[in-house]
């Protein structure tokens, strides 16, 4: 799987957990304020993405993420690092 394949898979996960249609996931949308993703949902998204893509995501790093675009960038970066390391 390439980084470009990643985004639709992440969108599916976030949409399933948050029950928000993926069409709302624009890069500049605020994850907490606009999508209403709370800390429990965020943890479930992190845990599911870790399992799905065989990654380890840093909670502190995620807490600095504000927008949907930043979240995708974080996951894509971790995924790329994992592939290089692996």
């Amino acid at each position, binding site marked *: 799987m390439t980084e470009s394949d990643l985004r639709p898979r992440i969108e599916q996960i976030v949409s399933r957990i948050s029950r928000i249609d993926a069409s709302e996931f624009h890069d500049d949308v605020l994850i907490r*304020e606009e999508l*209403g993703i709370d800390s429990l949902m965020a*943890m479930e998204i992190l*845990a*599911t993405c870790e399992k799905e893509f065989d990654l380890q995501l840093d909670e*502190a790093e995620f807490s600095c993420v504000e927008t949907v675009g930043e979240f995708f960038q974080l996951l894509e970066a971790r995924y790329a690092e994992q592939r290089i390391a692996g």
Partner: protein
Amino acid sequence: MRGKTTVSRAADFEFASHDSISDAVLASLADWGSRPALSVVSPDRPVQLISADDLRTGVYDVERLLRSWGVRQSVPVALFLENSADFVILLLALARIGAVVIPGKLDWRRMELAELFENADPQLVISEESHVEAVSPFLTGRAVAVRRAQGIALVQEPGKLPGEAEFPDNVASINYTYRGLGYPLGAMVTHRQYLHGARVLQDGLQAEAGEQMLYSIPMTHIFTLVGCILVPLLYGLTGVIARTIHPRLLFQAIHDLNIQHLTAVPEIYSLLLRAHGESPPPPSLRTFVSGGSVLSGELFARLGEHFGVEVLHGYGLTEFTPVSRNARGASQAGTVGPMCDGIDCRIDSADHAESGEIMIRSRFLSPGYYRRETETRAAWDGQFFRTGDMGRFSVSSDGFAERHLMFDGERKATRKVNGVMVDLEEVRLALTRFPHVRDASVRFETGALVAEVAPDASGVTPDLPATLRQFLKKQIASYKIPRIINLRE
């Protein structure tokens, strides 16, 4: 005529010898041995272990420090601290002095904080250094201490020496809660209530000294204070403070630290269940202690089946915790267990078989809401406290006293979001503070807060919901911000 089903357990309870949580805990720690009293699990550092001796020493040292700042009996002291060993040490040190602790929620913002500071008027505020900015509008004229990596330090001297306030006998803390009135109420909680609560929870848990209890729910909640701080410290368990709710880190801690008991809200258990997958359950686990919000019969069954644990769900209030709880070996799905010892309970219903308001009576019940006489009179109906919650007793052949209480939702205008109480009227008032909002209503629907907002003509813009959320973020805790905001005429 209305019927009242009463279940009495008051006659069965004899009170413990200690009258203060600090005396009881320090006596327990004296016989502890070499096992850690506390462990702290953080995402970004190794596990921190605190021995019983170090905890005792910490309490005495901090007590001396607080006294040197002028803290004495009946002085209200607000804590705005993360889950930490320092929180526990401060709680016990303040209890030794006889000061009154106000556990402040770190999520709270302008509206809630304004009520807390006006109502309780804490003379000393002890805050995480990173949180000072949030409370700064309310610190004028108060002593302020901050918690840093190096310890706790006084950073602002009081305008005058801390003054004593008037409290009923034996009050340990003021814990803020809601009754749907639009503002928080400070329930005065006595040392005896804490000790009683810890004892009846331990009666149900039947934990053994040397076992470990892990928790990640905020220490400011009464359920955490009683069930996660006091139960372990009084009954010889190591309390494991998890500063994360990340499932991977929680499972790792359960495995590495050989955890027997986990205490959490149903929403966290649900998250753990979904995240665990098909891996074998951690073999050390024995019980999941649950409270804070409704645990469905289905989740109860799935947790037991998947993790091989007994799930002990219960019911309690800030004014009195726990009211009822399931006990090991006898827990039942879909109930909050039989009444705890020391409590009379009435169901105020039209028919004995029907659901009605849960009313409780106990000599350990909160003596009332601090500086809120009208609200106190409205909630205390004679000797009974009107919980504002609905419930009924299960039909059982085991005898009347062993009937289980079934929770049927709130009668008051509050709802639980991820185990945390939200006052719908407070959220509505916060929305109406926005300059272009004429009116608003707030409801709880399929697990989320939904607001209907009527803006004035100049306020109708496509991005109003997003603007409102940004506004609310400064007014109220983020978990109270409605997930859906609909605009109406």
